[in-house]
């Protein structure tokens, strides 16, 4: 029996673009790099030995710079792209063995997708777009309209059902995209840079909306982004991709505090750590020294809010509470140290150059 908490597992996945990927695969397995493969054999190494487990009911964010293979990876989950080697298992089923009918069923009922450029059908109304999944299954507009309207209302598009997509702003179009994914009632939502094309303020709104929906619905979301702030805001599980390989994955706070390699250190160095880090990630768990504390804070509070509470006094320390019970203590000095990226706190000189 497979682990119930894992919805999708990707094992030893390789993808090589070119005329003879099988042959090129051998070179890659023998250790050839992306640049060499392109120059000597004219094949593009898209993904290399990917192993990722996507937890059920959580948001997994795949982050990487442009060209790192994020879109390629997410398209393997519903087989919009066929792998060169490896396995993809969804809810215990190896989807690479699916025939065309199984695959359509997977796409219609178990997985939905939200796209960077919205990809709505321009000749259909907002309602018809939201009802795409049921309409593909052959339901009439009358049948699906109630469900579709419910989700359109839920994403904040009350009264827009009869508009056409081109009459809406980008942010509203993407809300239709999300409603379309929700109307399909699938457990898994794939989101490829879903908010990257939106203005910053609207993007923040959409992130909040997604977090709200997720708290309510507990879908298994695979979200792709190139923006670390967005990743940290949404992720329960963070996967960092570079040049087609996973270079670190885990709990986001953990990655932030313990970056595995210089590439990630670089990445995390310009983040506003006070806003992102939570008390639980930097506290000392229960030393039970009954010292006098200046107050109680919740384990999910951000460091920023604790700094505000302490009014900048580094001499203080707090009890950390979880569900009303003390789980640890937080010393303000430790908090301040956590605000500086680890590399820089070890070697103070490099901070001069680090900007």
């Amino acid at each position, binding site marked *: 029996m497979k682990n119930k908490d894992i919805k999708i597992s990707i094992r030893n996945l390789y993808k090589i673009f070119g005329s003879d990927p099988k042959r090129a695969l051998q070179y890659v397995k023998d250790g050839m790099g992306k640049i060499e493969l392109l120059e000597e054999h004219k094949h593009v190494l898209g993904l290399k030995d990917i192993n990722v487990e996507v937890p059920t009911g959580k948001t997994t964010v795949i982050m990487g710079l442009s060209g790192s293979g994020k879109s390629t990876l997410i398209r393997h989950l*519903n087989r*919009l792209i066929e792998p060169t080697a490896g396995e993809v298992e969804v809810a215990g089923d190896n989807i690479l063995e699916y025939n065309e009918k199984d*695959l*359509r*069923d*997977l*796409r*219609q*009922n178990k*997985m*939905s*997708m939200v*796209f960077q*450029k*919205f*990809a*709505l*059908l*321009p*000749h259909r109304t907002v309602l018809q777009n939201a009802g*795409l*999944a049921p309409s*593909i299954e052959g339901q009439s507009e009358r049948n699906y309209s109630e469900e579709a309207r419910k989700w359109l209302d839920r994403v904040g598009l009350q009264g827009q059902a009869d508009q*056409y*997509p*081109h009459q809406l702003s980008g942010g509203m179009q993407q809300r239709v995209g999300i409603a*379309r994914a929700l109307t*399909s009632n699938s457990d898994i939502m*794939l989101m490829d840079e879903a908010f990257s094309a939106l203005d910053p303020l609207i993007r923040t709104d959409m992130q909040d909306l997604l977090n709200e929906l997720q708290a309510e619905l507990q879908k298994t979301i695979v979200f792709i982004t190139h923006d670390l702030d967005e990743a940290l805001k949404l992720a329960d599980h963070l996967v960092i991709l570079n040049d087609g390989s996973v270079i670190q994955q885990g709990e986001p706070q953990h990655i932030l505090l313990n970056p595995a390699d210089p590439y990630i250190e670089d990445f995390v160095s310009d983040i506003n750590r006070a806003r992102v880090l939570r008390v639980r990630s930097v506290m000392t768990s229960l030393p039970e020294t009954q010292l006098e504390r200046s107050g109680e804070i919740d384990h999910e509070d951000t460091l920023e809010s604790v700094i505000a509470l302490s009014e900048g006094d580094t001499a203080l320390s707090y009890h950390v509470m979880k569900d009303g019970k003390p789980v640890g203590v937080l010393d303000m000095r430790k908090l301040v140290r956590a605000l500086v990226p680890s590399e820089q706190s070890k070697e103070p000189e490099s901070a001069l150059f680090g900007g």
Partner: protein
Amino acid sequence: MATYDFIFNRLGLRNWCGESGDTGDGMTSMAQLLAETSGDDVEMSAWETPFPSMDALHEACPSFPQSRELTSGLESGFLAIKDTLKVVVDPLTQPLSWALNEALWVMQTVPWFIMIPLLMLVSWVVSRQMKLVALVAICFGFLGFVDYYIYTMQTLAIIFVCALSCVVFGVPIGIAMSRSDRVQRTMIPILDMLQTLPPFVYLIPLIFLFSVTEPKLYGIAIILYAIVPVVRLTDLGIRLVDKDVIEAADAFGMSKRQKLFNVQIPLALPNIMAGVNQTIMMSLAMVVIASLVSAPGLGVLVLRGIRSLELGVGLLSGLGIVLLAIILDRVTKAALARINVSQSN
């Protein structure tokens, strides 16, 4: 002595050629006739070396065919397969004759006081523009007033049937081209040929194949000439459909068929309609030429103008064709604009 004797000598084909020199086996080439009038076997300078054409080679070797034999060979070859070809093509194209006859009959039988309002109604439904409806009324009113009503209706009937056939055949061909690069590669030269071949050229074999009194003769000529744009633009339109939208259709589990009918064709519709517009205009252009092979309508009047130098008839019927062109163009363009508005992004 002919210039190219040496070729046949060198290749050891002299025996195959038979007697060297002019043994005149029936057909005489133009060059030979000229040579005879100007005196035999004048020594030629290098400047005057003839191109190694069939006739020049024939001069050196009587067994080598003359170009005239090529053309007559083509002709007798065509005549030889004509009957079998007719057995196949005749029944296949018979519906076209029926359709043309029916359409002509309907358009001429329905009285003008029903027909003109009907046409106005159609243009309203398609374009939703009062201006165009008025234009239609004025044009048909004018053409009826100068006693060209029947001719106009005949032309309209022919265009209706031919353009419709172009769409019925052209759109599926275009779809097939858009789905397979191989089909596209084979179709493009054929389309290029149809588009550039002077229409008179394919009228000739058609005349051999069918009798001049059959409507399908001009029907086929018009369709072959006018089908090209709708095929090309259907192919282009489907290939231009936004890749992201296609991907979304795939991601939500559409079958190929659903994708074609619910996404690709609707999104390609502006281009397909642009093709239909072109097709209609080209069939109108062809109607005049088709009158040479008994197509009725305004083209007959144009021909009368040319044949018996009736300047007035020629000009007026020419104007009639222009008016018809304007109406058809405006109405289809208005339909196109309506499609564009409903799906611009």
